[in-house]
């Protein structure tokens, strides 16, 4: 364990009956780091967070948060951890202010005492402080939930899919807030199914089926992408995908919105030859561009390798 590790996980495995939710996972998160777990539903993110927040017991392996063991010292962790579950879990029949007040009270503090911590987030929903939490919009709910998870000044913050179901603007705002919290020295573990959010983390762990495929900085993940990549655009995206797959030397083809990302094993790709091939197959307005891989490309590639 590195001395500055805030969260330490070693060979963690969790089974639910026959299913393996987490398979021999190890990682360290440094103090003050913004660490992201990226992966689709069912990757094991929620299970991992529940084990770290002492809600579930691991099948094998050890974990500690701020040096406290999640099994032996669970009571101590419950004093220093802030947790925001994936499902909106506040009292819908209480108002915004009552919810925040309640969570402050059960952690033995008051809103006034720690107002400076949540000010930036809470100020945005404060105009609605007398509104019932159940009547808030998705983005405001998340802000309130984050405020409630923060109000007791936790050392480590666990945010399970905080931006799922939130509009693009609110998502950006949310990540801005996380950055500021990080600057205040709080260790933040956040999970998300959105690949584009990975670049906002200090380090990310790409997860799939209970495995961590890689742990690295987002930049490093992209740099380690082993293939060359082209973005291909044409009128008929559906047929385009099929024909690209037939093209010699193509490793993989994925649709990204209205474009196709095509990867090649050998680094030298003749753009013009590919363009000619497509035009011959009656594709119109073909645009081909070499691009840098996104986290999603990396994720797909890692997933292919694991299978």
């Amino acid at each position: 364990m590195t001395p500055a590790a805030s969260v330490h996980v070693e060979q963690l495995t969790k089974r639910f009956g026959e299913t393996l939710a987490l398979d021999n996972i190890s990682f360290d998160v440094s103090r003050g780091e913004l660490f992201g777990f990226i992966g689709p539903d069912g990757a094991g993110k929620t299970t991992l967070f529940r084990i770290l927040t002492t809600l579930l017991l691991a099948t094998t392996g050890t974990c500690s948060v701020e040096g406290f063991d999640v099994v032996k010292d669970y009571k101590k962790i419950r004093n220093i951890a802030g947790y925001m579950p994936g499902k909106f879990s506040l009292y819908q029949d209480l108002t915004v202010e009552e919810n925040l007040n309640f969570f402050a009270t059960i952690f033995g503090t008051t809103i006034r005492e720690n107002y400076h911590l949540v000010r930036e987030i809470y100020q945005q929903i404060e105009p609605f402080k007398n509104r019932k939490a159940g009547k808030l919009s998705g983005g405001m709910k998340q802000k309130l939930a984050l405020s409630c998870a923060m109000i007791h000044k936790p050392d480590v913050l666990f945010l399970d899919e905080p931006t799922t179901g939130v509009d693009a603007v609110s998502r950006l705002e949310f990540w801005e807030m996380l950055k500021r919290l990080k600057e205040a020295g709080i260790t933040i573990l956040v999970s998300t199914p959105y690949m584009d959010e990975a670049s906002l983390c200090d380090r990310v762990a790409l997860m799939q089926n209970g495995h961590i495929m890689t742990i690295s900085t987002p930049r490093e993940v992209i740099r380690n992408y082993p293939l060359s990549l082209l973005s291909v655009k044409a009128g008929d995206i559906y047929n385009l995908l099929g024909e690209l797959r037939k093209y010699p030397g193509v490793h993989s083809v994925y649709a990204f919105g209205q474009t196709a990302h095509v990867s090649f094993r050998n680094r030298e790709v003749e753009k013009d030859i590919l363009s000619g091939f497509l035009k011959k197959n009656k594709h119109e307005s073909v645009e081909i561009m070499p691009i840098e891989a996104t986290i999603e490309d990396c994720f797909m590639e890692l997933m292919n390798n694991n299978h």
Partner: protein
Amino acid sequence: MKRFRGFVIKEFYHIFRDYRTLLILFGMPAVQLMLFGYVLTNEIKDAKIAIYDPSKDVVTRKISDKILSSGYFILERNLRSVTEIDPVFRQGDVKLALIYEPGFAQKLEKTGTARIQIIGDASDPNTANMLVNYASGIISNYLVSMNSEQVPLQIIPEVRMMYNGELKGVYMFVPGLMAMLLMLISALMTSLSITREKELGTMELLLVSPMKPWQIIVGKVFPYVFLAFADACIILVLGNLVFGMPILGSIFLLLLESFLYICMALSLGILISSITNSQQVAMMISLVVLMLPTILLSGFIFPVENMPMIMQVLCHFMPPKYYIIIIKSIMLQGNGIGYVWRETLILMAFTAIFLGISIKKFNVRLT
């Protein structure tokens, strides 16, 4: 302590913002009381009877008068022949028929016996049984008064119903209703409110806080002690004012015993919520496993003595039974703790057992 207070305040918010439940909580005792008091009564009042009196002499008239002036019966029809008995019962209004033999007074004078037939409509056996008893009671009363000068050697058992001389239904259903409603509010409401937190996911947040398990549990049930207690008072006051249900013993002891019973029911509610994670299951368990036995096996509606042996044994495990015994003893007989200490101890034991199991089963983690 501050945490605990904050928790209880939150719990009261939940309760007072849920108007519908609140209405049920406080409307139910009144409605139930009225239902049991006025509709479901098994008291006899103005039962319709038919009389076939072929002799029409002094004695039969006197007997008929006695019966009709008792307040229990009213005459629906004078029958002209025995053949009319069957159709008159089939019409359904008439519950009882009196048939005198011809020459009733003469026979009574000559031989010392005359026969009278009482026919009850046993499609409702309980009522029929009671009506027949009432009628024969009135007749034998009359005979006694007639024979008063020349007392024949006869043993007439005189049954006197103590503490509820008029066999009033209220005396039975007010205690029964209290047992039932307090059980419903305490056990059902607490088990629902705890499982609701589990369903909403807020239990997760409470667990990941420094709140201790007992603080969470006690904080959740605390408000329901008051609600249940308020309901108990409503039933007692209504029962007393509207139906004349007496409270002969100490009110303080009565409330104390009710408090004990509420605690027992609350711990049962906690136990239910500790074995399930969904409101629906909690509701099913509360209704099916608690309510039905409370109604059926506590002696509330059906006397325990009439049940088959195995049911009687089962009745011993029904906490409401003991509560009903206790409050009847206090309210109707004016007894003190000296008479009900055994039942009180049993209720305490139930409470301790339920609480013990729930604390053992309470999970500091998710299951």
